[in-house]
């Protein structure tokens, strides 16, 4: 098992004929993801990726013709809101928006509409999802993770890769890696992902990678304390970031008093989470917890 994506995922790629869309679609295909459709208005009828993937003009047509149940978006920021709504209306259950730079007011409207319909969104401004050995939706390099029992959820993109890389180096496999993205308004929160990992039979521990800004990590700490039985290892980026300075993501603005790394770390530690000092230490902590768990089992 895994969460969100697996071998049954039938993927549609929005913006497949663009440079990034095409590059990552070929990477996903190579990884083994079932890409059933591409979507680029005006290019319907073409076949791409060595004639393996048909392109459609509209998401509705793509879903009707191929039974796609998941959409991944490589579209310009100004088209992202429209593409998310289009995918939801076409009936896919899961939308993964890689696009960064989506206006935040667009996201509030999109979330409101998607919530009404019960469509799950991951992102925007995220690296997507990876269930090692089964399915990759997004841009996480496939070769840096192997299958296993560690669930990974992260607000960051490349920092996540660091962690996957270190886990693999220690022989630790991953159930699913969920990049939720760093934008202030997004689809899937830490709590959403933790809840899914808690319920997932394959996942036996979770790594959670947060950042300064917002209070999603604090809510996650509350959830972990109240509801999680599985061990969680955490990391918060931005301990040395000067308060109030904007750090690339809108999500990284330190909002008056709350949102500081120190508060998030305190909240997580209060919930029993082992918080790593630097990214390389995460894998070490996961391995340690694993050893302890095994020791407990042995006794």
């Amino acid at each position, binding site marked *: 098992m895994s969460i969100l994506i697996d071998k049954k995922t039938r993927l549609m790629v929005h913006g497949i004929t663009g440079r990034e869309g095409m590059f990552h679609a070929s990477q996903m295909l190579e990884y083994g993801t079932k890409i059933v459709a591409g979507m680029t208005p005006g290019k319907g009828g073409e076949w791409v990726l060595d004639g393996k993937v048909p392109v459609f003009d509209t998401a509705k047509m793509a879903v009707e013709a191929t039974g796609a149940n998941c959409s991944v978006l490589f579209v310009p920021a100004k088209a992202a809101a429209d593409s998310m709504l289009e995918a939801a209306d076409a009936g896919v259950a899961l939308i993964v928006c890689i696009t960064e730079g989506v*206006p935040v007011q667009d996201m509030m409207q999109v979330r*409101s509409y998607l919530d009404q319909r019960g469509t799950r969104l991951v992102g925007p401004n995220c690296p997507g999802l990876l269930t090692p050995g089964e399915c990759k939706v997004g841009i996480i*390099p496939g070769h840096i993770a192997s299958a296993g029992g560690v669930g990974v959820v992260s607000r960051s993109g490349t*920092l996540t890769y660091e962690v996957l890389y270190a886990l693999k180096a220690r022989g630790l496999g991953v159930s699913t890696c969920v990049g939720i993205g760093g934008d202030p308004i997004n689809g899937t929160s830490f709590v959403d992902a933790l809840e899914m990992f808690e319920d997932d039979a394959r996942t036996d521990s979770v790594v959670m990678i947060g950042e300064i800004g917002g209070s999603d990590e604090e809510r996650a700490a509350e959830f972990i304390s109240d509801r999680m039985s599985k061990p969680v290892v955490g990391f918060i980026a931005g301990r*040395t*970031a000067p308060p109030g300075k904007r750090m690339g993501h809108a999500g990284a603005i330190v909002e*008056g008093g709350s949102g500081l790394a120190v508060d998030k770390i305190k909240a997580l530690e209060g919930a029993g989470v082992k918080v790593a000092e630097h990214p*390389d230490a995460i894998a070490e902590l996961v391995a340690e917890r694993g050893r302890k768990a095994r020791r407990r089992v042995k006794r």
Partner: protein
Amino acid sequence: MKLHEYQSKQLFAQQAIPIPRGRVAMTAAEAKSIAEELRGRVVVKAQVLVGGRGKAGGIRLANSPEEALEIATQILAMQIKGLPVRKVLVDEAANIQAEIYLGVTNDRAARRPVMIASAEGGVEIEEVARTAPSKIARLHVDPLLGLREYQARDLAASIELPREHWRAFIDIARGLYEAYRECDATLAEINPLVITGAGTLLALDGKMVVDDNALFRRPKLAEMRDLDEEAAAESEARKYGLSYVKLDGDIGCMVNGAGLAMATMDVIKLAGGAPANFLDIGGGAGADKVAAALEIILSDKSVRAVLLNVFGGITRCDEVARGILMALQDVPLSVPMVTRLVGTNEEEGRRLLAAKDLPTATTLAEAARLAVAAARQGVAA
């Protein structure tokens, strides 16, 4: 993007929010002539994009045009929190009976706009929120419906605003919400919104922050950006779609992804060094972006070593490597540089750099150690 007070108030006025009569001046002489036009007492207000102008002496009352000239001369010579004052707003002085706070911003947790009001405006709203949270009224707005009249009325009732001001307050609140919507703002606030001696409401000060991601559809707002207020390196960075913030240390950082960039800074600190900057080359960065990023980092004279940390996702390692090599053709590498490339096309990227004798590291901790050592050697040398 932060807007100046005078810009924010102009945008408020477009939504029929009453603001004091007044204009912005670039020189003290201009300030004097505005004061002459307005007659009576005026307030001369430094226009800089930082808080705490009042405490720094950047907001002062002038009883005559001559006094306005004198005060404007002083304020235009000031620096506030390191920023030189280049403009002053000269506003008619108001007869203040009470000060209200009114603002709208995005509530991340609720995923919708939140309107905030308090009968105790004028002071730091964060302070009130901390010490007397019950004095702050919060109201969430459905992003598809907008702020409805009854909600603005609920807010007026929540802060126990005297009923005779409700009509004016409702119109101002709805105007402020419209300004927030129309400008794709992440913050729009009036602080203080004053009740004047004449019993009217007036937006005495205004602040707006606009979502940079929405500027593509707000060309008039994009023109309002005050280039004077930005460090040259930050403006230059923005041109290339880079996110750059100057810091105090001596190790220049170039990283892809904000989270990894922050983690890199954290690890440099753990290794005993200090980052000279935050620089996120972003996703999908091509060779030209990387070259520009390197030029920006090297133009900072306190940089003694550079740590380039790229984990390839959207940005492919070979592209990054080519960017570095291209930049090095224009910018001689005046300090040592440690690079770390992992991820998509990593072998190709490393091969390209190794061919030019650039040192590479595999783990982040190792890269940080090498960079810190290199910076110290530079100092020792």
